[in-house]
């Protein structure tokens, strides 16, 4: 799965958790907090994305992304490591 696919997945999960965003055009620079996601929403979006990717690692391992783009980057990196091991 490449970064574009992961980005689309994050966008889809974000809309699932916050339906009012269904017409939003997502950008890499978007911050989930600014889109109206509280801490519990943010954690659910990340978790559902990881489940869709069958990425079975601790949530804290993907902590630190400052926007959707960085989240996608870290998920992609973890996915490569996971698949390689």
């Amino acid at each position, binding site marked *: 799965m490449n970064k574009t696919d992961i980005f689309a997945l994050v966008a889809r999960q974000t809309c699932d958790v916050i339906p009012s965003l269904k017409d939003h055009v997502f950008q890499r620079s978007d911050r989930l907090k600014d889109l109206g996601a*509280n801490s*519990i929403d943010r*954690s659910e979006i990340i*978790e559902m994305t990881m489940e869709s990717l069958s990425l079975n690692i*601790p*949530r*804290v391992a993907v902590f630190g992304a400052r926007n959707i783009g960085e989240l996608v980057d870290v998920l992609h990196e973890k996915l490569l490591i996971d698949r390689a091991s």
Partner: protein
Amino acid sequence: MVSVGIEAMNVFGGIAYLDVLQLVRHRQLDTARFENLLMHEKAVALPYEDPVTCGVNAAKPLLDALTEAEKGRIEMLITCSESGIDFGKSMSTYIHHYLGLNRNCRMFELKQACYSGTAGFQMGINFVLSQVSPGAKALVIASDISRFIVPEGGSALTEDWFYAEPSAGAGAVAMLIGENPYVFQADVGANGYYGYEVMDTCRPVPDSEAGDADLSLMSYLDCCEQAFLEYEKRVTGVDYQNSFQYLSFHTPFGGMVKGAHRTMMRKIAQATPTEIEPDFENRVIPGLRYCQRVGNIMGGTLFLSLSSIIDQGRFDSPKRIGCFSYGSGCCSEFFSGIVTSRGQERQRLFGIERQLNERYQLSMDEYEVLIRGNDAVKFGTRNIKLDHELIPGVWSSCKDKQRLFLEEIREFHREYGWIS
């Protein structure tokens, strides 16, 4: 093997509280967001209160219900706290004195953020199970306050505090652990513990807190899963949805527990969305009620939740409660126990809900007076005489109750007195 668990438990939820939504409006934060986070009230410690007074005020009613012989069998007194008043001298020494306990007693303090109460509870359980002193009891008191002086560091830290402030409470839970577990009989050996190093939240300087709420939530959720998976390995045939009639969680705020429950039901129990909401109402909400009245009391919060279930739940038949404890830094545990209607009757004698209803409601101005005055009783205060008339309404609301309060700190020694 002997039976073991909680013989008696009481909560001290403070003498004054603040309405959280009122605070949120005052700080110009988003009120809708805080409603979703399921916070209602937070207990606020007066300057003449500290974790010693909270601990004594939780434990005194338990001891008053014992015979002298029973009281004399308390051979271990553990204070569980992250709000310590001295790096060496544990609060248990003061509490031991003001409760008039037997001197043939071990006394010490435990620390691991909000896990401390569980650490003390398990220590008491293991003391009884070991039978090195048959018939001995342990008194475990989890006591914490949030009395912060916002550190220098500019607006970023202040902003962080404004988001943590609504959930930060004060109070204590006292538990008598022994061989007659009327209130909560522990499932011996049914423990799943899970911990590792993470810098999520901590108290690295006196009278303040630091950390990242998002990281803490992620760590809490990881631990919620992993602690239960370990429990599952040790207990044959356990089922997250059906083995526990109630679930008790360490509750920083209700919304976090709702999220954790939803995650666990989805991932572990494979439940559908239509099953999850009613399950939350039936099994989890009873444990949130007292937490929503007091706020996060750190080491004792899980047991505050457990006491809420015991008081508010239905026990027409014995029921098993699954308990999840989490302390930042971190350490977590999933354990369980049985509660019966007899246990509910015994606990209700302490009138926890009535005590919460009788607290004084602070106005925002009174609250601001209190937090501006926090510096006067900061960690390391050498000498001070406390003014009990600071907010007169609070003091007069305590007049007909036997309560302990701080009167003076003299050359670092803390001197307390009773009001009744």
